[in-house]
């Protein structure tokens, strides 16, 4: 995709963008279309963090097979984020606990944060976009 190439708005400004993912994949389109925004933002050389809370943690679960529902398996994209210099991936401890998930269940390496740590991280952002 040509849109994924290096982009520049000419301002030289770098802002802290947080993408807050709170929804499970597949039931709605938000996770998939949200990922597209994340990739474009990284192409603008912005300071990107991705956060997964509530049902958003389900987006990162390993062992996905979408053949039976005939939709694209975009979970592999999370593993490719590294290639776009998106390395700040955070998940909420409480959301993981409430769903019986541990880091071992996830497709990528993440940093697990408490609600308080997550709150502080969010408070220091310039832009928060929630999908």
């Amino acid at each position, binding site marked *: 995709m040509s849109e994924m190439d290096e982009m520049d*708005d000419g301002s030289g400004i770098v802002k802290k963008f947080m993408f807050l993912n709170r929804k499970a994949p597949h039931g709605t389109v938000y996770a998939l279309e949200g990922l597209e925004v994340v990739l474009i*933002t990284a192409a*603008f050389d912005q300071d990107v963090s991705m956060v997964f809370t509530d049902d958003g943690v389900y987006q990162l679960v390993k062992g996905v097979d979408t053949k039976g529902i005939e939709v694209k398996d975009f979970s592999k994209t999370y593993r490719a984020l590294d290639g776009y210099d998106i390395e700040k991936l955070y998940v909420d401890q409480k959301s993981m606990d409430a769903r019986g998930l541990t880091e071992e269940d996830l497709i990528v390496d993440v940093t697990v944060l408490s609600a308080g740590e997550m709150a502080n991280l969010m408070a220091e952002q310039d*832009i928060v976009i929630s999908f």
Partner: protein
Amino acid sequence: MQLGILINEGPYTHQASDTAFLFARTAIEKGHTVPRVFFYHDGVNNSTRLATPPQDDRNVSARWSKLAAEHGVDLVVCVAAAQRRGITDDVLAPGYRISGLGQLVEMGIQYDRLVTFGD
């Protein structure tokens, strides 16, 4: 202050586009500028000129067009989301244009605030 707006839901089913419109109109009345509104996800469905709501109801797409004409608001519809949902240049109401997600990211970088309206 420059306020950017992101709309993630279509008209009528969700209140998002109505709330966003009233927010934008009020912001402009108060002396702020709304340089661009970005339509994403089902929000792209706000842009069609083919909608014909009953006369005693608001016309969501047309009132955005009017606000755009009067105050220079750039109404940008995401191309990838639009293609998935059958929104093409042929059906766009006045003032809307189709472009890439980079336009959304630019709003975040350049404007003072970005406010999201959705479900």
